[in-house]
């Protein structure tokens, strides 16, 4: 066995360790909010698409995904045919709505407050607000009317095919969907469970 072969042996093992470390980091990053975060329940609607690559999953549309920033003005949410949650701005925010529109995919923090046992968005800011429960998201789109679409990385819950089939009638009938979410101190959130029509979905 030559020195070169020995060196390559070690370097190939090191390459494997690097790849496993990245996957490990991904796992820890995922688990961190689940280990340390505050658990809250959030309202959502759900549909059951089937994707060639992603398989069977519930596409979740959180109530907090569509916000209407009331400090900007514009028509009432009902007039737009959107179920947008009215929120105010808190702390740092852009000077004008044109700036908000330009800041596409910028990070924002949505402050949640409990209402009948469900965490509901009350305000939105560019930075986490001290003392509040901050949910970190990215702006997906911003309309002139003050309606903000925010993505939290909580929009898909993968299922077994049998579970998906059993859920289909409830989701098609528009039964209430609630998502149990763990939110870490930095605002990053992970889904713990999904409850459809008061029934917990088996993982």
């Amino acid at each position: 066995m030559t020195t070169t072969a020995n060196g390559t042996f070690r370097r190939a093992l090191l390459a494997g360790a690097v790849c496993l470390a990245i996957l490990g980091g991904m796992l820890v990053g995922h688990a961190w909010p689940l280990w340390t975060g505050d658990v809250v329940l959030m309202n959502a609607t759900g549909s059951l698409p089937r994707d060639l690559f992603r398989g069977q999953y519930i596409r979740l549309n959180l109530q907090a995904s569509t916000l209407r920033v009331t400090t900007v003005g514009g028509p009432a949410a009902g007039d737009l045919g959107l179920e947008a949650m009215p929120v105010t701005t808190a702390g740092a925010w852009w000077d004008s709505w044109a700036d908000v529109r330009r800041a596409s995919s910028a990070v924002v923090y949505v402050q949640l407050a409990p209402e009948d046992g469900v965490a509901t968005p009350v305000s939105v800011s560019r930075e986490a607000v001290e003392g509040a429960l901050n949910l970190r998201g990215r702006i997906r789109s911003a309309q002139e009317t003050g309606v903000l679409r925010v993505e939290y990385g909580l929009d898909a819950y993968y299922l077994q095919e049998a579970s998906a089939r059993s859920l289909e009638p409830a989701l098609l009938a528009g039964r209430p969907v609630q998502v149990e979410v763990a939110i870490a101190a930095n605002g990053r959130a992970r889904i713990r469970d999904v409850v459809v029509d008061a029934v917990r979905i088996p993982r």
Partner: protein
Amino acid sequence: MLVSGSRTRLPRAQLDWLREQSARWHAEGLVGDDVRAAILERYEAETPESRGLQALVGIGILICALGVLLLIGYNWSRLPPASKVGLVLTAVASAFTASAFSYRAGRRALGETFLFAGMLLYANGIWLIAQALHIQGHFPDAFFWAAVGALACAWLVRSPWNGMAGAALLLIWGFAEGVATPGNNYLFLLAWPLAIWLARRLDAPVMLALIAVAGVVWVAVLDNAVTGGVLMPASIVLAGCALYAASAYDRLPLTFAWRGTGLLAILVVFVPLMVVEAQRGLLRQTGDAPLPLIVTTVVLAVPAVFGLKRARTAADWAIAAVAVATCAWAGLAMFGVRSATAGAILFSLAALAVCVGFVRVALVSGSAVHLSAGVLFALLFLIVRWVSVVGNLLWSGVLLLAAGGGLLLLARLWRGRGRDVAAAHGGGG
């Protein structure tokens, strides 16, 4: 080629060639009888049995691998998340361990194959773990981390295959990130030079070409995000010129990667720039060109024009002229001097200049690569200009006659050059 014991197995035809050639060398007194025998002793012909066995083993392994994948796939949705994650991690660890032991046993090809398989399993593992744990991250990040892993493997084990995969993933990430977060992907500016450094270290021209393409794609996507794509073709042309210029500072065979991707970028974008209607559409919007557009143009123009310092051949000068013409066109457009017809004529002349420059180099040096590039630009010019007059039979006829005549003249010059070279060689002998 297989190594069996101390003898290397060759295909029958190759071994026959070696026997025939060595007999001639022996007859000419180049090698002695014992040397010829010693050389031939190192090789043996592959038998139909050994080839059949190889095929059988290969097919068997392939079918087993497919069977394992299908069995896992069949049960995948039934597996609990922890088992899915465990399976992915075990598969990655096994592939890399197998690679390491193959390298230690001196079986480089097998080691490289396992390493590549490990990298593929790792990259797929990112998506599989995300699915198993309901992770909905920023999707381009998955490509970024896959590229980081592949490039790390390439760097650590000096593996060009992993390097190429890493470069391809970098390209996809540059595009996906640019589209998902428009105008925000400045991490690419750090990743790109590192990837270039690695490709040069590995002496991998294909990897370098992929990274160069990733650079052009990044420029195009950034331009589209920042300026709405107003002068995207100009940015791509300048990026192409800059890549071509970079070839003057590199060694063979990496120069081909720089030049090839540079020329490809210029070739593709010359099509709209030579068309009056496309020019009109672009120039209509240049009034809105904001400061970042000017900065982008200048930043790209500097390396493109910097290539002038090392311009040696007519082809180099032609590309430098393209860079200068593009800067002038973009500059004039930004300051309100906009003529679609003049722009189309300018870039048509630039295409002809590139064609003439490359053909001239080909005729002087006998480089078939330069001849091909020159003919490609000539055909591009011909097709774009012909499409613009296709309804007019007279102009179509004149254009095709001129183009056909030009190509025949070129063929004659090329053949004459070949004769001159043969005569010079004959005279010298």
